[in-house]
């Protein structure tokens, strides 16, 4: 691990993804430095979601190499890597049980065994996201799309990753709640200088608002 404070958290070199007989993206270079907000933009079909999934190690990378703090994710071990670089699905998956059980679920995993569930912080985050009191005891599979996105964001923030990969994280929210999500992510980022976030959004004005730099994906064909 480098000692320079500006070492990239995530770094991709000549990344390529080949699917269905064509390159979705190829020769893709990017760097995500600590404290940075990176936006991924591009028309639909250019593989924005595929890029986030590949960064999270959920999909393969067919070409090039990815490094987290200078190391290949496979060298770190995928579960440990993913505990640090957390991907949020556009339509989040809710686990069986109520909302609180969903928020607690990661703490039952080996990767987070050393930590205990911060109940107080969970409550604070839910309310910061404008969620109603008592949501914790509601069945997770009965939540609306927006509520699921809020719960999924809280679930991810509670395990204190260093990189958040947000895939249309505000797509099902009204304008007021979008602002709450943006403010919450921003506050999380400012809490620790060794954090960074990648936003994928179809709304360019949102990307211009919440990120400092854009990675443009083009129709590679």
């Amino acid at each position, binding site marked *: 691990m480098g000692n320079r404070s500006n070492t990239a958290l995530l770094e991709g070199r000549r990344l390529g993804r080949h699917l269905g007989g064509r390159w979705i993206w190829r020769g893709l270079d990017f760097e995500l430095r600590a404290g940075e907000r990176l936006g991924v933009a591009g028309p639909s079909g250019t593989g924005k979601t595929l890029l986030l999934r590949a960064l999270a190690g959920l999909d393969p990378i067919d070409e090039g190499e990815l490094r987290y703090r200078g190391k290949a994710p496979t060298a770190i071990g*995928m579960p440990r890597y993913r505990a640090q670089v957390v*991907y949020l*699905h556009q339509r989040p*998956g809710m686990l069986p049980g109520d909302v609180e059980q969903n928020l607690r679920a990661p703490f039952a*995993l080996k990767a987070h065994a050393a930590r205990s569930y911060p109940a107080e912080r969970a409550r604070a985050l839910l309310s910061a996201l404008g969620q109603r009191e008592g949501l914790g005891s509601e069945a997770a599979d009965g939540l609306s799309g927006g509520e699921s996105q809020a719960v*999924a964001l809280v679930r*991810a923030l509670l395990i204190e990753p260093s990189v958040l990969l947000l895939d249309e994280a505000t797509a099902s929210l009204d304008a007021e709640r979008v602002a709450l999500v943006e403010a919450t992510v921003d506050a999380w980022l400012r809490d620790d200088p060794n954090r960074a976030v990648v936003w994928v959004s179809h709304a360019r004005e949102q990307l211009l608002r919440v990120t400092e730099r854009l990675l443009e994906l083009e129709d590679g064909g």
Partner: protein
Amino acid sequence: MKASYIVIGAPELGLAALLMVANFAISIALRLGLAKSLAIASVRMVVQLLLVGLVLGWVFSLSSPAPVLALALVMASVAGVAAVNRTRRRFAGIYWNSLVSVVSAAFLVTGLALAGIVRVRPPYEPQYLIPLLGMVLGNTLNGISLGLDRFMEQLDSERVRVETLLALGATRWEAAHGAVQESLRTAMIPTVNSMMVMGIVSLPGMMTGQILAGADPGDAVRYQIVIVFMIAAATALGAIAIVLLAFRALFDAHHRLRLDRLGSA
């Protein structure tokens, strides 16, 4: 061995077949479309069983292990292929995985039971091995089929949940655990159900057969208990084996769910 039961000859078989005629008549009269498949099934059943009678007569006269074990292996292979054919999806190596699961579960359990419980000498004595193995295989096949099908469907329908867990740092085993549990539960449903009502709702076929053949009901019941334990053990073992093998095939070493390896049948 002298027959202490009433022998059934060709005329009696003809009379039994007459039981089906009424069904054909009703089906044809009401255009139910049952007649053709019923007729084919009836003919197949008769031909297959008469042939198997001949084959078994020959097999029971064998005294060397090689042909008996070869026959057992053929039976197990057919079961392994049939188990896969009843599922709706495929992945590379699925037939081998099924074969390994069926053969290891059925042979291990049947072998232990013959050598250690029933204490047949020699353990490959075909009069015991072939019928017992047949019963174990028939049930193991069902368990493997149900468990495998459920596991593949579950991963597909619960993909987002599984990947949500992976994305939060779960190992592939932690992420798949719910699907594994659910698949094994499904695989064991028929076995557990039939054990629950055995003797009350159903009189098991093997026990009934022994009683018809003049065996003491107490003896027949003890045989039945042994075979039910064999069936339950082999079904559970086979289902665990196939689900674990499918788990290995559908998750890779980097803890990724590989639904791209799953195709339709």
